[in-house]
């Protein structure tokens, strides 16, 4: 019986070790943890050139990852690349805006953030837009950036601020900057050097 118990304990340890290894593979080595937030809202953007941008490339703002690219395809009318991305609302939240799509203001005239799902604060008489909007302004910009010289490509978002109106989920980000091909940069640099010397 004693021997039996050792066998059972060792087998249990083995199974446990194996399952831990599978979990480490899934969550620590791999990126399964980035899959579980399937709730997110979409945005899209058109680029003249996306370079090496791939599906599941990260979408960042100020260096913080806020979402992933979900689809890349070609607009057959304009010959531009359409990039769809999904943004995690926990990282870049949704908010309520006024009927004109602007930031609601409090009594003092300061802008305030009403999270999606809540109503206007008691006492104020702001008429809110029925749907939730993003916290990105209409003139938000998306650019394709490269991590390091040879690293992978990702999308960087900037919130904008020149416009008063916010983007709704599913809207297109109009201001875009395409990926910069290294060959072009080097080419331009050499060209300028030659120009200077002349």
């Amino acid at each position, binding site marked *: 019986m004693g021997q039996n118990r050792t*066998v059972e304990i060792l*087998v249990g340890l*083995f199974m446990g070790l*194996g399952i831990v290894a*599978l979990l480490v*593979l899934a969550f620590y080595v*791999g990126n399964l943890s980035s899959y579980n937030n399937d709730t997110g809202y979409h945005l899209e953007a058109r680029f003249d050139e996306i370079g090496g941008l791939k599906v599941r490339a990260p979408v960042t703002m100020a260096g913080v990852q806020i979402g992933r690219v979900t689809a890349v395809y070609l607009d057959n009318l304009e010959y531009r690349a359409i990039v769809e991305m999904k943004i995690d609302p926990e990282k870049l939240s949704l908010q309520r805006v006024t009927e004109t799509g602007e930031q609601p203001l409090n009594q003092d005239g300061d802008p305030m953030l009403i999270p999606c799902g809540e109503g206007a604060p008691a006492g104020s008489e702001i008429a809110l837009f029925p749907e939730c909007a993003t916290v990105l302004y209409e003139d938000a910009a998306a650019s394709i950036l490269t991590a390091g010289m040879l690293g992978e490509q990702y999308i960087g978002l900037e919130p904008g601020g020149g416009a008063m109106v916010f983007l709704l989920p599913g809207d297109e980000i109009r201001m875009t900057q395409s990926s910069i091909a290294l060959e072009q940069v080097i080419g331009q640099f050499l060209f300028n050097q030659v120009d200077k010397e002349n």
Partner: protein
Amino acid sequence: MERIQQLLLQLFSVFRRLGRGQLFLLHLLGGMASLITRPGLVVRQLYSVGVHSLVIIVVSGIFVGMVLGLQGYNTLVDFGAEESLGVLVALSLVRELGPVVAALLYAGRAGSALTAEIGLMKATEQLSGMEMMAVDPVRRIVSPRFLAGFISMPLLAAIFTVLGVFGGYFVAVPLLGVDDGAFWSQMQARVDFYDDILNGIIKSVVFGFVVTWIALFEGYDATPTSEGVSRATTRTVVHASLAVLGFDFILTALMFGA
């Protein structure tokens, strides 16, 4: 003329063996259902198949990872991309080396032991004795071993892979001075759960199935003499290894190919 005839005969015997192997597989799969009521049988086999293979898997995993780290560093440092070492180590282990090397080690360690055990049981009339006691030896002896092998292989491959990654980490970060954060973050960004890890796990499941099947069949089909058992054991290692490499190519082509 005689040579052609001999060739044909040989071909027939190959097909016959294949057919016997299939029937054997069906038979042992038929015995799976009855194992639900007797998990103790499987636990005992998990011990001899899984736990006994653990040492070789652990040691080999760490060393393979360390070698990958060293070799990868030497190549990547020329491009100034040594931060990608984590990606290199993890991807090569997760996709290929983990499942394949673990399966080869498993075939050598557990597969040959299974063949020898069952072959000897046959040679010493233990299987026939069971039959005469109205106990189906395939269900009683073979099925639990098959299930144990089928469960163990993916776990062993996962342990191998994880230890390999840590072996690579040990060489890269403390010894070669690769940045700690870059090692992990690049790895996590580039190793995809579905494309890489799940496919690796599928590979190891397939290998576990094939290697255990071959090992058990070779033992069960062995000529019941000492020479027959030793031949069967050799055949297990050779055939199982070839099968692993062959299936690896097919699976890689299916998963990562165009």
